[in-house]
């Protein structure tokens, strides 16, 4: 049986004016478990707290009920006060008789009655309270960044600069990501590689950063502060130590420098050989052999690259390697891709080489791209004179074909493309079919207006019904002009599609490994959309870049920095304090049915086969185990559990039931 002290606060007149405080004291004095009850003007004041401490010592109190303002206000205060007197802070319950009683009721008798009932509920609860201990878990001072695009690069640099070790895992042979494919960036039109390459080099040279390129995360276990991650380093077939990055190997293969494999980097607009570096500024500057397409790996014959390599770096015998590394925090920066356009037959993308995506246009306009920066039609290599841009291809769709969201960057990059084309080839006519032009952002609307006003880009609010390639090589775009209400048949010689962006398809697998939640569109979910936008609900997992949602480069970079700060904030701690109000499984009642794990937003519940002794019956059972470092104490599992095995400390089934009983008494 507890020895409970009840302390009723007047809060000046805030409570006392409507609640007869003395009467409350008299009426709760005889509740089961109560050994002491008193009132005071300001319970939270130093004198008030002193009173509590004295009573704890004098009466050997084991539990406290403070009838005062909201626990959201002073629960911490009173818990600290209890702790000072040597009482476990979780043996304190607060009855909210100010915000939820005296302030909203006028009739003193009624308010007093209610205050007594609220106090009784709190007393009944404290009778079932048990001392809870905050747990501690150590922190591995190393972070993992998954994805080596601009988001991952920036996050890694910021963490590394703060003095912590960080590893980047990138599945491609080089870091750089999508940004390295871009030509110029809006709204300043500076060259993407000019601003990105220095950062890539910095990453490569940073003493705190380890790069795992051509590598993938294979398995994740553990929890915040203590993740164990298996990284698969795919066989590069080129010895990192020996290769000097001279590039000789890529020139003399079966098809020389041209190769016959569509280059991923150039979006298939150009070919590459089987041994390749994706692009000239690749980091690391070490080629890989694409084994699926290599003649040697396919037929056992060839071996030319090995013969010509001056440093004998080519190693056909190399094997995939799995390294296991411990991390304290993980940042997901897996970025995006554009949607597959197979479902959009009306745009003739698969049919006509002159219907291209915006990202292909980036490559076509890039000096290092397949055409050396000359904008030309892929069909006849002639310069296009009439170009149509189609917006929202698969964005803002209400059917199953596309995505319901706005891809956010298309309006801006289309204006950028239009202006760049007009700058280089002023005699080109450009028409943009849009649904809405969205330009919120610093200098964004000015940028768009320049395209319309200075460059005379023809913006038509209208939806494109069909893109029809013509036998003469031209293309007719059928559209409705929504403002004029007219049907348009626009003849042109190139069509550029602003295809919707989507999270990198690999993110689903990674999210599952990390037990990080993702939304219906496969974007990672934030812990709180407004207040914790760079954290995943799963503790220790952070979000950076497009993996979380569509955003442009400056936003990505700022989010990357924010994620880095959160990581640093975590790594700076030697120990993590864990919330003691966590779920707990009664292994004797647990069925091992996994229902609780299905509703846990934090992946805090795992299953283990344990040996139990159920009143003398010994057997091995599959039971739930709660990782208290991950559990945030929401209690979703407790309501899902049919047998009542899963319970929440501090808000246990019996505690809440007894509160209900006390109120209904």
């Amino acid at each position, binding site marked *: 049986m507890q020895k409970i002290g009840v302390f009723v606060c007047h809060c000046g007149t805030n409570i006392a004016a409507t609640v007869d405080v003395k009467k409350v004291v008299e009426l709760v004095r005889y509740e089961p478990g109560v050994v002491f009850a008193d009132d005071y003007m300001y319970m939270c004041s130093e004198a008030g707290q002193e009173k509590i401490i004295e009573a704890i010592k004098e009466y050997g109190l084991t539990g406290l009920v403070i009838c005062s303002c909201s626990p959201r206000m002073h629960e911490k205060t009173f818990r600290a006060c209890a702790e000072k007197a040597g009482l476990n802070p979780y043996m304190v319950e607060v009855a909210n008789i100010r915000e939820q009683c005296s302030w909203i009721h006028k009739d003193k008798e009624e308010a007093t009655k209610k205050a007594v009932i609220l106090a009784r509920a709190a007393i009944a609860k404290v009778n079932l309270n048990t001392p809870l201990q905050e747990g501690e878990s150590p922190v591995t001072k190393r972070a993992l960044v998954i994805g080596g695009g601009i988001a991952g690069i920036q996050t890694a640099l910021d963490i590394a600069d703060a003095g912590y070790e960080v590893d980047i895992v990138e599945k491609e042979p080089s870091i750089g990501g999508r940004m390295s494919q871009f030509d110029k960036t809006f709204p300043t039109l500076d060259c993407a590689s000019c601003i990105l390459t220095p950062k890539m080099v910095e990453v490569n040279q940073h003493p705190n950063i380890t790069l795992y390129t051509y590598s993938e995360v294979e398995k994740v276990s553990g929890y915040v502060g203590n993740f164990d991650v298996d990284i698969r380093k795919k066989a590069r077939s080129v010895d990192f130590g020996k290769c000097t990055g001279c590039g000789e190997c890529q020139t003399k293969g079966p098809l020389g420098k041209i190769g016959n494999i569509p280059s991923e980097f150039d979006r298939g607009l150009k070919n590459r050989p089987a041994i390749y570096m994706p692009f000239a500024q690749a980091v690391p500057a070490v080629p890989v052999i694409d084994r699926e397409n290599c003649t040697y790996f396919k037929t056992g014959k060839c071996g030319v690259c090995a013969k010509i390599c001056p440093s004998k770096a080519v190693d056909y015998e190399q094997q995939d390697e799995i390294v296991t590394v411990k991390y304290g925090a993980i940042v997901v920066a897996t970025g995006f891709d554009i949607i597959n356009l197979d479902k959009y037959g009306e745009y003739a993308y698969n049919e006509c080489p002159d219907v291209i995506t915006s990202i292909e246009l980036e490559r076509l306009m890039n000096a290092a791209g397949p055409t050396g920066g000359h904008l030309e039609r892929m069909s006849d290599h002639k310069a296009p004179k009439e170009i149509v841009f189609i917006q929202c291809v698969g964005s803002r769709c209400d059917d199953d074909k596309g995505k319901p969201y706005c891809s956010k960057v298309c309006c801006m990059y289309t204006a950028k493309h239009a202006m760049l084309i007009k700058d280089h080839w002023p005699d080109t006519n450009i028409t943009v079919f849009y649904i809405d032009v969205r330009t919120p952002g610093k200098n964004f609307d000015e940028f768009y207006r320049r395209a319309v006003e200075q460059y005379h880009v023809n913006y038509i609010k209208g939806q494109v019904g069909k893109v029809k390639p013509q036998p003469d090589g031209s293309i007719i775009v059928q559209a409705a002009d929504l403002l004029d209400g007219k049907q348009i048949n626009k003849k042109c010689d190139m069509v550029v599609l602003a295809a919707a962006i989507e999270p990198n398809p690999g993110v689903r697998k990674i999210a599952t490994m990390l037990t990080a939640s993702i939304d219906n569109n496969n974007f990672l979910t934030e812990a709180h959309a407004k207040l914790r936008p760079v954290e995943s609900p799963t503790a220790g997992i952070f979000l950076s870049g497009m993996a979380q949602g569509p955003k442009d480069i400056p936003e990505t970079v700022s989010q990357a920095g924010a994620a880095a700060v959160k990581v640093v904030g975590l790594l700076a701690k030697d120990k993590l304090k864990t919330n003691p109000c966590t779920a707990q499984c009664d292994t004797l009642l647990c069925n091992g049915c996994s229902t609780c794990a299905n509703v846990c937003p934090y992946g805090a519940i795992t299953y283990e086969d344990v040996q139990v002794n159920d009143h003398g*019956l010994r057997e091995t059972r599959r039971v739930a185990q709660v990782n208290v470092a991950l559990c945030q104490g929401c209690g979703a599992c407790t309501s899902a559990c049919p047998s009542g095995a899963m319970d929440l400390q501090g808000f246990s089934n019996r505690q809440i039931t007894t509160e209900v009983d006390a109120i209904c008494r």
Partner: protein
Amino acid sequence: MYSISKDNLNALYSAIAGSYDLFMPIKAAGQTNYGFWSEGAEGDIDTLKTIKSGKDAFFPQVEQLYTVNREIVPADVAAGPEAEKAADTPVRTKLKVNPVKLVDNDFVIFGMRACDVRAIEVMDNVFLTDPVDNYYKSRREHGIVVALACHEPEESCFCTIFDIDPADPSKAKADVATWVIDGKLYWKPITEKGEALTAKISSVFEDDADADSKIDGEKAYIEGIAKQLPNAELSLEGWGADKTDEKFKSEVWEKVYKGCLGCGTCTFVCPTCQCYDIKDYTTKDGIQRYRCWDSCMYSDFTLMAGGQNRQTQLQRFRQRFMHKLVYYPTNNDGMFMCVGCGRCVEKCPQSLNIVKVIKAFADNK
């Protein structure tokens, strides 16, 4: 000998209910169970077996024993906080126990079959021997049992193996015996209690001169059927007093218990099972302490802080039948704690029952 037309039974019920509480089989929501009759209720004496037996009449499924509440002792309040501090364990409230009123009005249990009447004897041996159960005793003293012959026994019946006569309830310890023959209920008081009841309601009856011959005919008919019942010859050899060791250690249990769900159906429909649990229910006016039937088939039966003496369903299953066929006879001059009513035969969800157990042991020889 009295009789009354079956069409007129409501008049009989009314007459009884005028002076007594009338507890009898009543049909509601498609099933017939014992309940208190009131005007408009559908009395049903044609259904051979009520689902639950009539044991609720004396040993209801739930029965309040007493209530407890806390009272503040004013003296301590007056003494104030200083006096409280002085005391080691300040007593400021005390518990007040309020017993419930025992049954003190006569009531009639109408339509009990001979097997259920025998079951009362079985329970008497438990509740009326020292220490006497006052709640049961008061009901027994005030209950008047009107038994009814079983016109057409069914295949699940096996009362005859316990020397119970379904044809003649006057042999059972009933206060009144009745028969339903050709649309008439024949009424024969046996005990003083029965006579007193009959006297009170005699105006609803007619005198029937042919009664005895009719009843003899009915008895012969019933006996004829009883002999044909599939379990009429079931042998209880090997069971009874002092067979504990032999039966307890038998390997047969392992074979017969497997299908058992551990539910309480058999126990709760049984007229002789008399185990109960005592529980508290907290209300705003204090704690109500009640007892309710419990089943030895339940996994939490006799669960204690230190664990359980029967941990497996095999042990629980064995307990129930050992109690009925060995332990009880051992303590009660060979009387079995089964009356062959066959309710468990009909109602066990898995079709396990005492008959199968008896047969399984017989086959094993």
